[in-house]
C-alpha cells in the first residue's frame, strides 16, 4: 500500500488528474449506481474511464493511492461508506494505525503537530 504524504490539497492539477476517479466516487450518491458498481466494479471503472492505476487503486481499496492519483477525500469517502468503513478507519490507513488506535488517539485529544 502507498505511504501517505503529510497533506493532500485538491488543487487544479490534482483535480485534473483525479477527474475520472472523483467522478466515479461521486456517482455513488445515486442508489442505482451503488448497485451497479457493487455488481461489477471493474466494468464500472471502465465505464467511467479510469486509468489503469486508478482502477487498481479502486479495486484494491488503496486509499492513499487514490489520493496520490488525484482523489479527494470527500469523494473517496463515499466509496468507503459503501464498504461500511468509517473516517476513523481511513484515518488509521493514512497514519499506519488500526481503527481502534486511531479512534483512541482522537478521544485522547487528537494528534498534535505543535
Amino acid at each position: 500500500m502507498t505511504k501517505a504524504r503529510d497533506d493532500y490539497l485538491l488543487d487544479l492539477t490534482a483535480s485534473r488528474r483525479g477527474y475520472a476517479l472523483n467522478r466515479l466516487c461521486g456517482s455513488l450518491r445515486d442508489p442505482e449506481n451503488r448497485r451497479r458498481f457493487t455488481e461489477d466494479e471493474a466494468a464500472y471503472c471502465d465505464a467511467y474511464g479510469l486509468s489503469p492505476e486508478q482502477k487498481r487503486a479502486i479495486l484494491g481499496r488503496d486509499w492513499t493511492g487514490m489520493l496520490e492519483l488525484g482523489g479527494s477525500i470527500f469523494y473517496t469517502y463515499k466509496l468507503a461508506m459503501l464498504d461500511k468503513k468509517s473516517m476513523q478507519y481511513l484515518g488509521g490507513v493514512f497514519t499506519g494505525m488500526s481503527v481502534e488506535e486511531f479512534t483512541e488517539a482522537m478521544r485522547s485529544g487528537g494528534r498534535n503537530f505543535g
Partner: protein
Amino acid sequence: MARVTWGLATSHVPSIGAAMDNHKTGDEYWKPLFDGYGPAREWMAQHKPDVAVIVYNDHANAIDLDMVPSFAVGTAATYDVADEGWGRRPVPPVVGAPELSEHLVRELIDAEFDITTCHRLDVDHGLTVPLSVYCREPGDAWPCAVVPVLVNVIQYPQPTAARCYRLGKALGQAIRSFPQDLNVAVFGTGGMSHQLAGARAGLINERFDRMFLEAIEHDPESLAALSREDYIREAGTEGIELIMWLVMRGAMSDKIARVHDTYHVPASNTAAALALFEDLGER
C-alpha cells in the same frame, strides 16, 4: 427592514447529525458535546428567526468538480436533503426564502461580489447539521426559512479569509436593506481544526482553535489576515472551513455579545465547537 438578530458559528460534522438521527446524543461519546450545546439551544429557541442565512460548503454532493463556484447563493423555493452516498438524513426538506435570495444576489453583485446562483441545490450535512444544532426536533418542518450561501473550501485555491470577511460585511448590509420586517440569523459553519486525509490525518490544534474562538468576537481582522496556507498548516486541510465563520462575523455589526460557546474533541475526526452571538447593533 430586515435585521440580523444573532449569529451562530458551529461545526457541521456529519456524525453530529448521525448522533441525533440515531438517538445517540446521550451516549458517553456524544453527551459532552450535546450538553455543551444546551444553553445555546435554549436561548435560540426563545429568539426564533424568520430566516436563517446559512454559510456552508458542499462536500461533493450538489457541486461536482466540473464547475466550482467560489461563492454561490441558493435562490430556490425549496431544497431537497442530499443523498450523500448512504441515504438521506431523516430530516425535513428545507424551505427557501427566494425573495430574500434575489435581493441578496442583486445587492452582493452590486457590491462587486460576482455570485453564482443555484436554482436547484440538494443541501448536504454542511447545511442540515447546523440546522439540527439549532433545532433538535423539527418534526415535519424546520422552524425557519433558509437562504444557503456556499463557499468553496474543498478545491484549492479557496477564497481568502479576508475576502470571506468582506463578503460577510456586504451580506450584512444586504440583509439590513431588505424591505421586509424580518429577523434573520446568520450561521457560519464548519471547523474547527481537523484533517481527514494524509499522514497528518487526525490533526487537532486546540491552541489555534481557542485563539480563533476568542478572536472571532473582538478581533476578526486578525483572523481575516491569515493566509490559506496559515489555515491549512494550523487547522488542517479541512480546518480551512473556518473561513466561513468570518462570513457570519462580517455580517454582524461591531456591537455583539457572546451568548454561549462550547468546545469539544472529538466529533469523529474533528474538533467541534459552537459560538453564539447576539447582535446588539440595531438597538
